[in-house]
């Protein structure tokens, strides 16, 4: 008899493992996007403040984004080993281009009249950024966060190759043992996580910027 796509008895026997892997997947993703945001905001502000740096910053993050995940993780392994650090450094690197580009685009989208008015009302540069420009840029920034999050959830599976991987570990197990059930469980749950994250973030974006509802 051929190997069925899903053996429920395996799923029942491995509920704890599945939950732990899902949890690890979420943790790896959250940490990567959070660190990505912490790095992207200053980068985007620098890129906007000093025009000459825009090209190099987008170029550098673009090169990082272009390097295939297998290669990026592989280049890190000799330095940080088959570790969680290796996984996170790689995952964070991939979020930068998407986040920086959308933060810059969001801030550039703030109408000049609005900035003028804020200036006239006596906002200092920092106050204007935090209380006028950033709130108006929220729709574009959250769109970037959604793309970065969904992309990261997919990339986490690749870190299964360096001994991490969350649900990706099941995909690798399925490949190595030529056994479909873990492969299907890992794939389906990874897609489900991406969809749930996207819907949750879309909801959060609406709450934060109700005027942008389409």
């Amino acid at each position: 008899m051929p190997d069925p796509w899903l053996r429920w008895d395996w799923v029942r026997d491995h509920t704890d493992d599945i939950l732990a892997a899902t949890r690890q997947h979420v943790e790896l993703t959250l940490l990567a996007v959070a660190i990505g945001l912490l790095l992207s905001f200053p980068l985007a502000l620098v890129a906007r403040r000093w025009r000459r740096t825009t090209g190099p910053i987008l170029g550098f993050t673009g090169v990082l984004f272009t390097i295939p995940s297998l290669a990026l993780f592989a280049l890190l392994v000799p330095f940080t080993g088959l570790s969680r650090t290796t996984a996170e450094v790689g995952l964070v690197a991939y979020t930068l281009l998407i986040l920086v580009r959308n933060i810059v685009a969001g801030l550039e989208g703030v109408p000049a009249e609005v900035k003028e008015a804020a200036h006239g009302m006596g906002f200092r540069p920092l106050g204007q950024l935090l209380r006028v420009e950033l709130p108006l840029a929220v729709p574009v920034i959250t769109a970037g966060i959604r793309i970065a999050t969904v992309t990261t959830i997919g990339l986490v599976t690749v870190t299964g190759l360096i001994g991490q991987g969350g649900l990706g570990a099941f995909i690798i197990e399925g490949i190595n043992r030529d056994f479909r059930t873990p492969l299907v469980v890992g794939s389906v749950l990874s897609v489900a996580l991406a969809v749930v994250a996207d819907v949750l973030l879309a909801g959060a974006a609406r709450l934060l910027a109700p005027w942008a509802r389409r």
Partner: protein
Amino acid sequence: MSLPADVVTWFTTAEHWRGDFGVPHRLAEHAAMSGAAVVAAMVVGLPLGIWLGHRGRGGAVAVNLANVGRAIPSLAILALTQQAIGLSGWPGFGARPAFVALVALAVPPLVTNAYVGMRGVEPDVVEAARGMGMTGGELLWRVELPIALPVVMAGLRTAAVQVVATASLAAVIAWGGLGRFVVDGFGQRDNAQIVAGAVLVALMALVTELALGWVQRAVVSEGLRPGRERVEQAPAVVTA
């Protein structure tokens, strides 16, 4: 010995440049597989996206295709394809599932960008072309497509770079290509081979990106060159 020296030694070892397991053969394999997958995906995806955009139909499907594609991990597509159609068969072990998976990955960005590019053609321009007496075919080939080209090309770059990247992952499902060096290096705990393979894979992706960027600049009409970033951003920011 230090790692950089080991990597240099790896690259200068004659054995690594000969035969079916050598760099030239792996590189040719990788390029042929990626090229074939991108061409096949263009044959499927471009007419579909252009037609949908021309008719102004199926927008939600066309635009969301790329978002859905992003949610499915490429490793999962490779492994599931391997299970669905098996590893053996022409033109080599693991080649068939790798090819099918790569085409499946490359189609969504092509369809989405072709659609977005076509929809981005201003109605006034279409109106003017019709007023000049252009037929549907002339309108498509001489007005809409040239104007949509920057966005279509951006989609092609995205698709091609993704294919080159994922082709390296196909080593995990027993295919060859440049990813073989990295995956074998992991297996043998051979850091020099891991880094050498990673350098080759990264260079291949960067060269693909640069080469297609050059092609894009060469084929796009000069009057249609806004900021490159804006063109690439168009599909990325359109999220429904």
